[in-house]
Structure formats: C-alpha cells, structure tokens
C-alpha cells in the first residue's frame, strides 16, 4: 500500500512540476511605470489578427481611443466633424484613412489612424533596452498581471493578447486574472493589477464622454493617471472655455497626450458587428449613441419583389393582413424599467421605444442626430445656458391596454417630477451623474449627504434644480455651462417624463419588470405583454407621430444564454428577423450570404496600464 | 428400508479466476427413509457444496460435471435431479427436499413477515387457500415451539432472536412435509444451550414426520447425538462412511482418527489434545493420490500416487484408505481412538 501511495504521490508531483516549470519570475508592476515598457507592449500586439481572423466582423483594429464615426464639436461649417478625421488634420502624420471601404484583412485595415502602431522590431528593441535599464537577468521572467472579466466571448482576446506579448517580448509572462464582471469592478479600484481590460461606449455625442474618464480623480480612473496638461484641456473644455473647432482640437491634443506621450492606454479595437438581417427590413440601423435601434423608423419593404421565392412564407408571417410584425431576440432580461433609476442597456433600449423625451433620435436615413419629440420646439438663450421647451399638448399617457390614463396628457410637470427623482439623493439613482454631465444648475444635491436633513428640507433643495415648469406645456432648463451635446442628451431615457399621480399610486413598484401595468407610455409603442418568455411592443394609436410608425407589433423572444450558433439557427428557422454573428466561425460560414449586414458601433475596447502602481 | 436418495459418482466444479476448483470429487452415497445421515469434515471439505448440489442451488459458477442424483418418489418413480429441468426442480424443492441453513440471522428475508415466509411454500406446493395456508403456518409455528403464533405471523425477522429464527427456518422447511430435510450446520451460529434445543427439535420433528435428514456439521458431538449414519468428507471426497458406531468406535481412515483424536471428551481428559497438522489441499489442483496423505502420520508411499478405492469393511462401513489393503502394513490408530474402540468392546479389524 505504501508503494501505491508513494507512486501516486510521485506522479502527482510530476504533473505539478510539468505544469509549472520555468524561470525565476519577478513582478512587472515596477516596470509598467516606465513609458517605454508600456510602449513596447503596445507595439507588440497584432490587433488586426484579432479583428480580421478571430472576430472577422469588420471591427477596426484600433491604435486610437476615440472611435471612428464619432462626431464631436462643431466643424467650420457648423456641422459635426468626425473626431478621427480632425485628428488626422491636426496630426497629419497618420496613414491615409479610408474608413468603410477598406476591405477587412487588407494592409489598409492595419490601423490607419493612431499611435504606437504594431511594430514587432521596435517593440523588441524597446523591451530589450528596458530590460537592461531595469537590470533584469536573462533567466528572469517578468510577470504582468492582467485583470479581465470572464465573459466567454472575450477569452479569445485575452489569450491572443497574452500570446502576442509573450511571443514578441521575450521573457514576459501575462498572468490572466479572470473574475466576473462585478468582481472586476470591485477589484479595479484596489489597483492590484498591471494591465486592465476595459471598454467604454459613449453616453452622449461629445468626445468628453471618453476623455473624462482619465482626468485626475475621476471615479473611473482606476489607473490613477494624472497629467496636468491633460486635466487642463479637459476641464477647460468642460466649462466651455473652448468653443467649436477649438474644442475639438483640444480633445485631439488630449488624446495624443494619453496615448502617445504617456501611453496610459493600449487601444485594441473598435467593435463592429456582422449580422444576418432580413433584406426587406428598412431603416434598421444602429445609432452610435444611445439605444441600438429606434423602432419608430423601422419598416418592412412590403413589395413583392422584396420577398425572394423562398421567403414568401415569411412574408405571410410578418405581414399578416393589416398587421406588420417584427420578431427579435433578446438575450438578457430587462432589470428595471423606472427611467430615473435604471442603468442597463436593455432597459434604456426598451424605454426608448415606449417612452419619449424632449428630443427623439433622428431617422438614420437622414443626417439629423435628433428631432423634437415631446418638445414641439425650443429656444436657447444667447449664452446657451437657458433652454425653453414648448411641449406638445396632445400626447396622452397610455396604459398597457392601449387606452388613455385618466385623461392625462404629458405636461411640463411630468418632466420636472422625473428630473427631481433623478436628482433625489433618497432615490440614489446611479445615473444621476448625467445631471452633472449636462451641467444642470443645482445638480450638487444629487451627491449631498442628506442623512441629517428632513424630507421637507430635501424637497426644498430639489426645488432649486435648474428645471422648471414655466407653464403647463413650457419647460425651462437652466444650465451652468453651455454644452453642444445637451439637446442630444434629451433623448436619453434618464430624462424622460414620469406621471406623478401614477407614480404615487404605485410607489416603489413603479417600473417593476414583468408587469406592463406598472408603467405609463408616451412613446411610439406600449408594452402589451411581458413575461419570462419575452415581451411584445404594440404600436400606440395615441402616439402623436403614429403615422410615421410602420410596424404594428414587435415581439421579443427572451432566450438567455443562447449559444451563438443557436441564435443563428433561430434566424434560419424564421423565429427572428435579425441576428448577430458572434464568432469568427459563424462569420466565416454565413458571411457571404446576401442578407449579411455590418453594423458599426462607437464602443472602444482597450487595455489600461496601471501607471500609479504602488 | 426404503431408499430415498442415491448419489452416484457426483463431481462438482467451480470456475474461478484461479481456474477450475474440483469441489466434489466422485462422491457416492445413499439415503433411506427416516434415517439421519451426518456429514462431517473440516470447512471447505465440500459438505455444503454436496447438499447444495442435491438441491441444485449451486452458485452461478458451479456446475455438476457428471454423476447422478437419483430421487425416489413415493410412487416409485425415480428422477435424476442432476438433469432435471428448472420447472420440475421447483416441484421437488420445498415439497420433497427441504433445507435449513447455517445462519438464521441471514436466511430469512428481512422485508417479509414471518407468516408470509412460512405460507409461501405451503401455497406453492399444496394448493391451499390463503386462509388454510395461514392456519397451517400457525400450526407450524407452534410446532416449532414458538408461542403466540398468531401474533408472530405478523412480525418481521429482526424482531426474533437467533434461536427463534432458526425455528422459523425449520418450520419453513417442514411446511410441506418433505421426505428429505437437509440441515446445513443449523446450529453453528447459535449459543450452546440453543444448539441443544434446536437439535432436539429436529430429532423430535423427524420422528413425527418420518423424514430422512442429512445433517451437515463439523461438530462430532452433535453427530453422536443425532446421526444414524456418518459420512466423513475430506477434500471433496467421502473418505469414510458407516453407522455412527462404525465411525465412532471402529474408524478406519487416518483422517477420521485425527478428527476423533482432536475432539475433547472423557477419553482424553487431561491429555494434550491432538491436532491434525497442516492444512487441507488446494482443490484447484487436488493431489494425485490420497488427499489426506500429506498430513497423515500413516501415509503409505502408494498414497501419493494412487487414489484409494472405497474399501468395504462391513455391510454398513466403508473407507477409502490403502491401509485397508490386505498387503498394507498394520498400523495402530492413535491411543485415544483405541481406547474409544475398547470401550465399545470391539477391536479395530484393520
């Protein structure tokens, strides 16, 4: 028996040894402080391989932080200017930019614009020099800790980054610390990492939504990046010191400081997606900011030519008599539908269909970012700090059966009530920071410690918020600073109106999910059915712009954790009308079909270097 | 006396990982109505295998290689149990031949009431209604001297003591008045006081039912008490068979001598007890000659080469040892055995 045990023991030991053989390992947290080390790492990663071969979904390999197709500031002719185009004009030493017509995988797709371009030779040189400078012995391996979240779809990226760095920079090891998304958020502020994987999608149409993160002391600045010049540029832009072109150029400079001078970030790619979508769907385009689609503008091409031979039966299913139906897939549940507390993309998306703010996102076919929604018209004061909105007088509040609620229509008071809820420290809305972002007068109340205040005192404070009903249908908003993106933000769900009487009748249950009765609707659609299998949006006949709305019924089927292949199969079976091809394998299989659509996005994915590592 | 069972040249083997074990080698004997045949021998000598072959209850890997087991029905028909089909065998088991097992703690089904277990063979073999079978079972319980039989019917084995369980097993065995009762070491697992009670019970019931009893034991004391005839088994063979007095007072086989000498009794009081040296042979590869020769103090050279045949000593007494050959050297059995024989007043006729 002893023999058997000892054999087992030796074998186990053997495996362990085989598993973790290797050189002396030293922590890389000191080295990561060095800008050249960071630059070496930045140049060592073949981003195009990831976007073109692994994802194969026409995402752009990025050497930049602020994405393409993101319009910021005002150009010379008064219109929005693509940030990257301007960046090229300012720092003209970039490669020529060809954007959409560049074929995936071609030489041109190798990061046309940006800093620290993929260059193995230079990376190796920088790394060897740094090793010498730090006095690293030949047999020593430098270990960098990379903190990531364990979402299945990202593991390829982590493995790729790890492989690239370890291959190109000899004597390095990337230790992947894979935690859940929630844990990552907790772990990141502790600074126990060398490299952190992050992504950021814009909240509003201004580059500041990206750049603000790395201002000294920002809550999201996990790497404790601090550069006085950078801070100066951003803070000045925030208070409106720069206007128009000047402001855009300030941002371009700030990005260059962040990426080129300090190498605080290692951009990986700007994500796009390739999907299958019925060719007959029209105006089904994603927006760069805010909810993915605005269903209000979507329609079926009902002409017979549009339905190819084999999809004729689909037409019968989608256009049944007078009713047109759209079927879509939802992969995660809606967590909360109270517009002033919710935080989640799915919730925002659905709120954008069933409720409407002062502004509404424009038809993607046109060039308009936003159009008047609940506000019929507005005026701006000369200094750009006071907005006066004139509301529509005929938009009823709709119940989940499609009828009007208590004969009530949307009034200015509904907006005031909602905004005060957003700012109310007792509600503690996670999205109250948006009030600061747009710079509403008196936003500070949202962050105040109110434990010692009475309810009445808080209410008095809230009344000082810069939003006022100056008439039944007139809303006045007073801002601290003038911001270009203010109007665009008015289409964001956090600023949607809420009917006070209805809210009071429900209390905490307002916006509770799975119960369409706990919401009032003023948008193009209302929720007619909502359970664990999904939900149905029904066209609202009481909507002011109902003639624009083309699709009568939108059915969302909820399939949590559906495998990418299963999702595609659902599309092929005719269960849904649009699907995203989530793996390179799927893109390769289905990418050449005629119903393939590429959708851009302005989400940037990057690695952060822990500069202020102790 | 009416012959009930005739076993002729029975050979039983077991297939094991190690090879074929020859558990029973060329065994022959017969059994008459009303008599008690005791089979004695060390553990592993094949006693139990022999009786299980008679019941055809061998384990899956055991089979009757050749030989006959002839059962004589009361109407005179004779069947060969060794070749009987399963269906016919079911009719013999329990009804004609019944069996009592060694360990009463395990031989009753723990999840079935006592009554049901007794009624089972009655209903199977005697076509009685449930009510009559119940009545019969109650009678049987009182017959094996357990009181309050009606109440006992509803109880489970675990509520009974070992002795009581063995009584129940006997009641089950006797339920259909079998002609042959095989008792496979029925008292080994019991206390001494209860042993006596059980043996008395078997004796008493045998007199009542006139059944023939095959009584397997390694306890010679029990044998003297109960047996009409005794068969001594060693290494899968019967080495000596005869009436009780034949075997006890004029044993002829050296193994029987050893057995008798190693048993304490009034004859060898105060002496150092004899013990047979060595261990029984491995039946995977049984020795060529007399299996006992290796351990015997009286071994002849021939014993290692030739199997001794069954020598007839008297009409009732047979033994398989070359010592009985007229040309063999005369040997003296151990003193204890001699003294025993002298007590009886008969000398060993060697």
């Amino acid at each position: 028996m002893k023999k058997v045990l000892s054999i087992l023991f030796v074998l186990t030991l053997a495996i362990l040894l085989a598993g973790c053989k290797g050189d002396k390992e030293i922590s890389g947290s000191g080295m990561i402080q060095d800008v050249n080390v960071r630059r070496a790492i930045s140049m060592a990663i073949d981003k195009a391989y990831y976007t073109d071969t692994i994802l194969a979904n026409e995402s752009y390999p990025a050497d930049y932080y602020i994405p393409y197709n993101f319009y910021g500031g005002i150009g010379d002719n008064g219109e929005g200017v693509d940030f990257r185009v301007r960046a090229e004009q300012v720092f003209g030493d970039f490669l020529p930019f060809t954007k959409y017509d560049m074929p995936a995988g071609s030489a041109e797709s190798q990061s046309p614009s940006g800093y620290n371009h993929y260059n193995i030779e230079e990376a190796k040189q920088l790394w060897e020099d740094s090793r010498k400078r730090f006095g690293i012995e030949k047999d020593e391996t430098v270990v960098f800790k990379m903190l990531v979240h364990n979402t299945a779809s990202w593991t390829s990226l982590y493995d790729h980054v790890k492989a690239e760095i370890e291959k190109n920079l000899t004597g390095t090891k990337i230790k992947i610390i894979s935690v859940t998304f929630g844990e990552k958020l907790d772990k990141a502020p502790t600074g126990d990492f060398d490299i952190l994987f992050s992504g950021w999608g814009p909240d509003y149409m201004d580059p500041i939504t990206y750049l603000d993160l790395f201002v000294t002391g920002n809550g999201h600045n996990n790497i404790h990046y601090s550069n006085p010049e950078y801070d100066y540029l951003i803070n000045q832009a925030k208070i409106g010191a720069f206007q128009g072109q000047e402001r855009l150029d300030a941002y371009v400079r700030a990005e260059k400081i962040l990426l080129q001078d300090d190498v605080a970030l290692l951009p990986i790619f700007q994500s796009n997606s390739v999907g299958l979508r019925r060719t007959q769907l029209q105006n089904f385009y994603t927006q760069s900011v805010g909810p993915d689609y605005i269903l209000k503008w979507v329609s079926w091409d009902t002409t017979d030519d549009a339905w190819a031979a084999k999809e004729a039966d689909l037409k019968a299913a989608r256009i049944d008599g007078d009713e047109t139906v759209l079927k879509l897939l939802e992969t995660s549940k809606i967590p909360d539908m109270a517009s002033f507390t919710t935080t989640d993309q799915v919730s925002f998306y659905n709120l954008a269909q069933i409720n409407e703010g002062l502004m509404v996102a424009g038809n993607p076919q046109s060039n308009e970012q936003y159009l008047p929604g609940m506000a019929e018209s507005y005026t701006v004061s000369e200094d750009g700090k006071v907005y006066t909105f004139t509301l529509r007088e005929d938009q009823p509040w709709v119940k989940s059966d499609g009828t009007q609620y208590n004969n009530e229509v949307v009034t200015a008071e509904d907006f005031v009530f909602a905004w005060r809820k957003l700012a109310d420290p007792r509600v503690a809305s996670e999205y109250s920071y948006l009030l600061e972002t747009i710079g509403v007068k008196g936003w500070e109340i949202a962050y105040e410690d109110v434990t010692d205040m009475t309810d009445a005192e808080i209410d008095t404070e809230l009344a000082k918020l810069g939003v006022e009903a100056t008439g039944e249908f007139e809303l006045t908003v007073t801002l601290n600073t003038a911001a270009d993106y203010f109007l665009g933000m008015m289409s964001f769900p956090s600023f949607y109106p809420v009917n006070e009487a209805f809210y009071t009748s429900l209390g905490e249950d307002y916006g509770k999910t799975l119960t369409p009765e706990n919401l009032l609707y003023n948008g193009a659609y209302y929720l007619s059915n909502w359970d664990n299998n999904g939900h149905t949006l029904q066209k609202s006949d009481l909507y002011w712009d109902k003639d624009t709305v083309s699709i009568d019924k939108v059915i969302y089927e909820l399939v949590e954790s559906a495998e990418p292949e299963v999702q595609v199969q659902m599309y092929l079976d005719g269960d849904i009308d649009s699907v995203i091809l989530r793996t390179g394998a799927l893109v390769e299989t289905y990418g050449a079909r005629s119903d393939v659509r590429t959708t851009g996005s302005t989400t940037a994915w990057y690695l952060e270097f822990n500069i202020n590592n102790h | 006396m009416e012959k009930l069972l005739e076993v002729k040249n029975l050979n039983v083997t077991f297939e094991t990982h190690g090879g074929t074990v020859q558990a029973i080698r060329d065994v022959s004997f017969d059994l008459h109505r009303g008599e008690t045949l005791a089979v004695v021998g060390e553990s592993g000598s094949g006693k139990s295998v022999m009786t299980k072959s008679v019941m055809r209850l061998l384990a899956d890997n055991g089979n009757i290689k050749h030989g006959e087991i002839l059962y004589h029905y009361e109407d005179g028909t004779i069947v060969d149990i060794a070749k009987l089909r399963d269906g016919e065998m079911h009719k013999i088991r329990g009804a004609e031949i019944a069996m009592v097992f060694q360990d009463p703690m395990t031989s009753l089904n723990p999840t079935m009431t006592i009554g049901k277990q007794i009624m089972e063979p009655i209903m199977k073999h005697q076509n009685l209604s449930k009510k009559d079978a119940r009545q019969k079972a109650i009678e049987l319980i009182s017959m094996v001297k357990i009181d309050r039989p009606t109440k006992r019917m509803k109880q489970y084995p675990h509520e009974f003591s070992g002795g009581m369980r063995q009584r129940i097993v006997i009641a089950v065995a006797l339920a259909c008045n079998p002609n042959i009762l095989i008792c496979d070491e029925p008292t080994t697992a019991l206390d001494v006081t209860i042993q006596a009670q059980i043996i008395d019970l078997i004796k008493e019931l045998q007199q009542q039912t006139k059944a023939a009893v095959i009584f397997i034991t390694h306890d010679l004391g029990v044998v003297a008490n109960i047996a009409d005839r005794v068969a001594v088994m060693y290494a899968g063979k019967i080495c000596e068979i005869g009436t009780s007095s034949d075997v006890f007072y004029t044993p002829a086989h050296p193994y029987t001598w050893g057995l008798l000498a190693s048993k304490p009794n009034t004859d060898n009081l105060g002496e150092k007890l004899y013990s047979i040296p060595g261990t029984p042979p491995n039946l995977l590869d049984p020795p060529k000659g007399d299996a006992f020769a290796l351990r015997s103090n009286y071994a002849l050279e021939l014993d290692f080469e030739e199997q001794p045949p069954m020598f007839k000593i008297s009409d009732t007494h047979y033994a398989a040892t070359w010592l009985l050959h007229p040309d063999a050297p005369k040997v003296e059995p151990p003193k204890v055995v001699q003294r025993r024989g002298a007590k009886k007043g008969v000398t060993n006729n060697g």
Partner: protein
Amino acid sequence: MNNMKNDFSKIKIDKSKLKLVSNRIEESEEISGVSLGYWKDSFRRLLHNKIATISLILIGFIFIFSIFITSTTPHSTVIEPQIKDPDTGQMISKKSLTSVPPRIKGLEWLGWFDGRVDKLLPKIALENEVKYPKDTYEIVECEEGNTGKEMCTIDLDVYKQNGIEQLYFTFGTDQLARDNWTRVWAGVRNSLAIGLLAAVFDIVMGVIYGSICGFYGGTKVDNIMMRFIEIYGSIPSIVLLILLLSFMDRGFGALIIALGLTGWIGVARMVRAQYLRYREHDFVLASRTIGASTKRLIFKHIFPNIIGQIVILATFSIPAAIFYEASLSFIGLGLPTDQASLGTLINNGITQRSVSAYLLWIPTIVLSIVMLAINLLANGLRDALDPRLRGR
C-alpha cells in the same frame, strides 16, 4: 455402494509401495498454503479482469504521454507554434495557421485526417480567387439557397489554401492558431491532475473527518460533526464554489481546493460508517483490552481494513472531479482558457462547431475515453478489492 465388493485382485497396484513413509506436512503447507497478501491478491484479481487491465494500461499511457508531450513542447499550450517555412526560411504568418483541420501524414486516405473540410458557400464567394484559389477545392454540389442565392458545398483543402502543404497538424489548430495536439494533451494532463489532486484532497479531508467522527461515534463530538456535515452538504456546491473562487485568483489551485471542498463529504460519511462497523469488531476490542492507544487503534487496526473502500471511492471521485471541472468550464467558472483542460477545450469547441467540428469532437472523444478508462478501472478495483470475492 452396497454392490461394492472388496475385490482386491482387480486393484492393480505396486504392492511394494504399500509401506509407511513419514508425513510431508511441510509439503502440504507449501502446496495448499499459497496464501497471497491482500494487495497482492487484489492486484492479481485486477489483472485477471481484462477490461480493467486495459484501462489501467491506457490511463498510465495517456498520463505519461501527456506529461511527455507537454514537457517537450514548451509554452506551446499558450503560444501558437512559430513555424518557419522550410523553403523560404520566412516565418509562416499566424493567419495561415488559424483553424487548420487535422492532417496526419499517411492517413489522408481515411477521409478524416486529410486536412480537408466541407464548406457551404455562396457561389459568388468562389469568384474571389484570392481567398479560394481554384485548385484548392472541389465543388461537391450546388443548389438554390433560401435567400435565393446559389449555395455551393465545396471540399476545401485548407492546407493548400493557406499555402502550408508541407505541414501536418495532427489534431489541427484552433481559432487562435494554437496547436490542438499539444493543447489536447495539456488538457488531459491538467484534467487528470485536477482529478487526482481533488481526489487526494477529498480523501485526506474525508478520512481525517470521518475517522474522528467514526471513532467517537455516537458521542457528542460525532453528533456535532455530523450535524455540520449535514448543513454543509445542503449548501449547493456551486455557491460554495463561487464564494471560494471570489476569494482566490481563478486558476489551478483555486479550482482544486474548490472541488475538494465540495467532494469530501461522501468520503467522510463512508469512513465514519466503516469505522462504526469495525469499532465493535473483536479484533479492535482485543487490541483495546491490551491497551492499544487511540492513535494506534485508528491507524494500525481500523484504517487498513477500510483502505480498500477508500481506494475505490478515490478512483470514482477522479472522473467526478474531471466531469465537474468540465461543467464549470462550460459556465465560465473553470480554468482560464490559456490553461487548457478538457473542459475548456470542449467548451471552445462548442463555439466553433460549425466551422471546426474537430475542435469539439477530438477533446470530447479523448475525455470520454479517459473517463471510460478510469470508470472501468474503478469498477475493476471495486471487484478486486472486495474481500468477499477473494480467492475467486
């Protein structure tokens, strides 16, 4: 029998041999007393079980082979192979090595390891001769697809398409251009190591806990300890796992401890039951009467009797741990993907199954073989170590 007569004339024997000889007891002891030790006997019986023997050899082979393979190809489990083109001396681009199907020299005729895949493409895609050069595929069939386009199934030689005809990847490569062969073996090694170590952890914890419970069986100590087990056992193991993983860096060590922490209860229960059984046995009472210490009683008297049971349980808990790890990988809580395990490989294979089916089937088959072998060995061990079956 009655008709037997002592007809001595018929018995033909060498009468000279009818003489007394001294007994040969030593010989009798020798012949009949081929007594084997428990382990020897068990081992002998195990070897008699053909299936178990084959399994044992197979596991041993896989084990040694996996260690050998992974230790001779350094880092290949993490980094894709860097291969120089023998003709040009240039590095072959990573892209040419991505998702290459299996190909084995000499086995191409089998149809499985020939480096070719069937692909369904729209006919127009074939017009792109840069991606699909004419000589790299054969058209199997073309038909009208459901979008009204003509779709063709082609039999594509990926090695030729990628210009790496001189190379052979036994199990192909994955979507990150990593060699599947080394990854599968690394997966086998890691999975086996996880299974073994988790089993060791189970056994150590379980035996210690179970022994204490069993030895103090029926007393307050036992009572409290069993209560604890009951409560501990009723907490879903997945919650314990998540909790534990949230305190530790995800990886090999954490996983083993996590698996071990949830698996020892069965062992502890069994050990306790066995102790209670043996505690009352005469030999334990006997050694108690001669004043054996508690420690001695546990380790010298009782423990050897239950070790067979423990070995069986341990053998069964190895596949259980491998199985569990695989399931955890499926829900994203297993090993990080850069450390391959059979679970992570299969999980990756599931996402790639439409294009690279081999990435799913190869690790699945390997896992099934390993699990089958261990289970069959465990079955064999159970039979071999069963004292009731001794000598059969």
